């Protein structure tokens, strides 16, 4: 597997592999500014510089952010903008988010870092009961819309249970917040700036697997990418694949392999999971008649279930044998047998990050007869 080799080499040595994992059809930036090849953490860093530069009421804070953060995303910010605006906080996630809510409630842009998404749970109450309901419960007298919570998520390969989780589904059940996950450096910069400037609290999960691994041309200027708009990053006609974040690189690899077998894949990056763009997914599924959803998080109660439920609701008659055609190939980092084999989780990524996990069900699904009926079905079901 080519991809696995790239991952192994790239991460094991901590080296930046110059590769362009995504063929983005649309231009993300305005295309006018200078663009440089940078990795994902540098793109985040650029976005934070711009956010602080363009709004003197913006603050960046969290555990160890002052010296640059454990992933270097906040490098240079404290020197540039001062320790009053970029600062360390005590090691207390509920405090970080609660403090951020208060700061945001005073009209500031509070950009809070949770060091790992695995440690966001102490802040769950502040996010779910406070940030998400702040505007609603006050009848729009108060809001904490300036709050953005950044957290690195997902498996890298050696993180074990507590540096590998993908907790996005917990937050997708909460009206009042937005959940955004970028797939690449250019996306990360544009989406993060949109999140910071969005008038609603946002949880922004950063794929830490790609912090150094993913490199692409990123415009140096200030640009924003729309929230709640999915993007078709690969056009195809036989099957729709839906994913987000780091998992898209695995899915793209599977698409390439399928292409060699003559299967034409359409790949959609959801980007914003809450509120998510049902229309783009629906349009694609109506076209291809087959769908495959993949995420790193556990399958039960995962966000893939939400997507599949919506597809059942909206495109039931567009698929030939609905429940066999819906092939939810959901990959989990928490299968217990992996841990029995590798108690330290050292080689976890090499198990979950293979495109064969996706390719095999993809193949079996597309072996079914074409689900598109020769005559269009009635629109009202």
């Amino acid at each position, binding site marked *: 597997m080519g991809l696995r080799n790239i991952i192994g080499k790239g991460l094991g040595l901590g080296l930046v592999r110059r590769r362009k994992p995504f063929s983005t059809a649309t231009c993300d930036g305005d295309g006018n500014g200078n663009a440089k090849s940078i990795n994902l953490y540098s793109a985040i860093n650029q976005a934070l510089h711009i956010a602080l530069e363009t709004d003197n009421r913006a603050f960046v804070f969290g555990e160890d952010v002052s*010296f640059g953060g454990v992933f270097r995303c906040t490098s240079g910010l404290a020197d540039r903008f001062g320790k009053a605006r970029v600062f360390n906080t005590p090691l207390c996630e509920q405090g970080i988010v609660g*403090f951020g809510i208060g700061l945001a409630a005073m009209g500031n842009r509070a950009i809070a870092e949770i060091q790992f998404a695995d440690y966001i749970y102490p802040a769950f109450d*502040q996010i779910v009961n406070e940030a998400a309901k702040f505007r609603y419960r006050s009848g729009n007298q108060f809001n904490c819309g300036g709050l953005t919570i950044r957290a690195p998520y997902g498996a890298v390969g050696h993180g074990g249970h507590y540096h590998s989780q993908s907790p996005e589904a917990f937050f997708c059940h909460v009206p009042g917040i937005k959940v955004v996950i970028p797939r690449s450096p250019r996306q990360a910069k544009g989406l993060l700036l949109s999140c910071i400037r969005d008038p609603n609290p946002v949880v922004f999960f950063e794929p830490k697997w790609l912090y150094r691994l993913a490199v692409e041309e990123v415009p140096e200027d200030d640009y924003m990418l729309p929230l709640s708009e999915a993007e078709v990053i690969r056009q195809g006609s036989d099957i729709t694949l839906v994913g987000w974040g780091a998992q898209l690189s695995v899915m793209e690899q599977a698409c390439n392999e399928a292409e060699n077998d003559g299967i034409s894949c359409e790949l959609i990056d959801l980007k914003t999971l809450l509120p998510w763009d049902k229309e783009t997914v629906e349009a694609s599924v109506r076209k291809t008649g087959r769908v495959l959803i993949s995420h790193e998080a556990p399958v039960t109660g995962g966000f893939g279930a939400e997507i599949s439920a919506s597809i059942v609701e909206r495109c039931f008659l567009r698929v030939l044998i609905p429940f066999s055609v819906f092939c939810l190939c959901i990959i989990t980092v928490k299968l217990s047998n992996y841990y029995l084999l590798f108690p330290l989780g050292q080689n976890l990524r090499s198990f979950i990050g293979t495109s064969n996990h996706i390719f095999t069900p993809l193949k079996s699904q597309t072996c079914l007869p074409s689900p598109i009926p020769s005559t269009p079905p009635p629109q009202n079901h």
Partner: protein
Amino acid sequence: MANWLRISSRTVANHIKKRMNKGFMGDAVHVNHSSGLWWGLNRGGPVSDRNRRHMDPLAWNRATLLCVQRFKSTLAEKQHDSFLSSDSDDDNQSVDFPGGKVSYTSEMSFISESSQTRVPCYRVLDDDGDLISDCDFQQVSKEVAVKIYSNMVTLQIMDNIFYEAQRQGRISFYLTSAGEEAISIASAAALTEQDIILPQYREPGVLLWRGFTLQEFADQCFGNKADYGKGRQMPIHYGSKKHNFFTISSPIATQLPQAAGIAYSLKMDNKKACVVSYIGDGGTSEGDFHAGLNFAAVMEAPVVFFCRNNGWAISTNVSEQFRSDGIVVKGRAYGIRSIRVDGNDAVAVYSAVSAAREMAINEQRPILIEALTYRVGHHSTSDDSTKYRQLDEIVYWKKARNPVNRFRNWVQNIGWWSEQEETQLRNSVRKQLLEAIQVAEKTEKPPLSELFTDVYDHPPSNLEEQEKHLRETVTRHPKDYPSDISV
């Protein structure tokens, strides 16, 4: 939390790893001179200066007086203080640890878990409402005193009438301030309108003081169209932007870390204002209590944390809540100056909050106030407190230690209040309230569309879809839905 794992992460830059390991491997004695990491934790300036400030005689003389009284009480406290006062130790006898010098001792001495006597409670008026001689307090003008008293009476009447309205089934829920009237009203009196309030839920007196009208209270409790919260929350969850009173949320203590963030914003804007955040005794057991106090201390944020220790968290007595001498002693562990005050003495509350506010703003630091009081009423209309506490106890606090009666004695003895004014006030407030309730009851409920607004700044397509679906269902089955809500 899993520091070793964070360090071992291969994605963490190598030089950071080295620094962290150095710090964690007992090499810390020299670290604060060599490593930027430790300095990052002390943003307020050099470590030693910060610590010395805590040991300096306090700038505010009244607070000094109280602290001195407290320190001389026990042997344990002396030991504690000698442990802290290591300024005179020569360098060979101390370790230059991150956070400041620590002296060595050959004596194996544990700090006592508590002092032998409890921290005394500051008061100004005795049980009969007479001024205690040689008392240190903030002068209260006639105008302020009369307003405090009038507000306390208004709150009592409001509680009685809303409580009855709930019993008659006209509102769904209510929660009285009985026994704690002095706390919310006298503390509000000591603040300016620019000071920002983060309430728990038993502080409607603050709103009353700031001019929230009886009609506004009634509209919230009835959840009608005029309620600022658009009828979304249970009764008593007030909020008013124009009164700098953040909307109450039911979860306990969540407002405390938020208070630190709001106060940090005031600090950044150089505002001459502070945040006052209220909490009950039960709330101090929450993790957010720790987060709020610690953040405010570290960020040097002007917050006055006001704890109403009324002895009971629903049915849980303070003896089942914590093993410390109440809440006042917890301040020191966070590096926060603290005072215990008689919450049923309006003048003491007023004086302590005035002083706390002044210190919080002038010195840019949090202050902790513990007010001893008693919840004379049930926790709420959903509670019957006679099931878990003695009637004698309730009656004692209601009669002998009543904060409203005590304050009335004081204003009446000075000659600022009369029997005639009392009767007039009570009649007038009762009349206004009954009118307010009638109006609130007749005012229509918020329309169905308000169920979906304000979740986000604009309703996204998924909520529009859900709203459309709900409207269709209501139209199809109108009998299943309330008739007084416009679709």
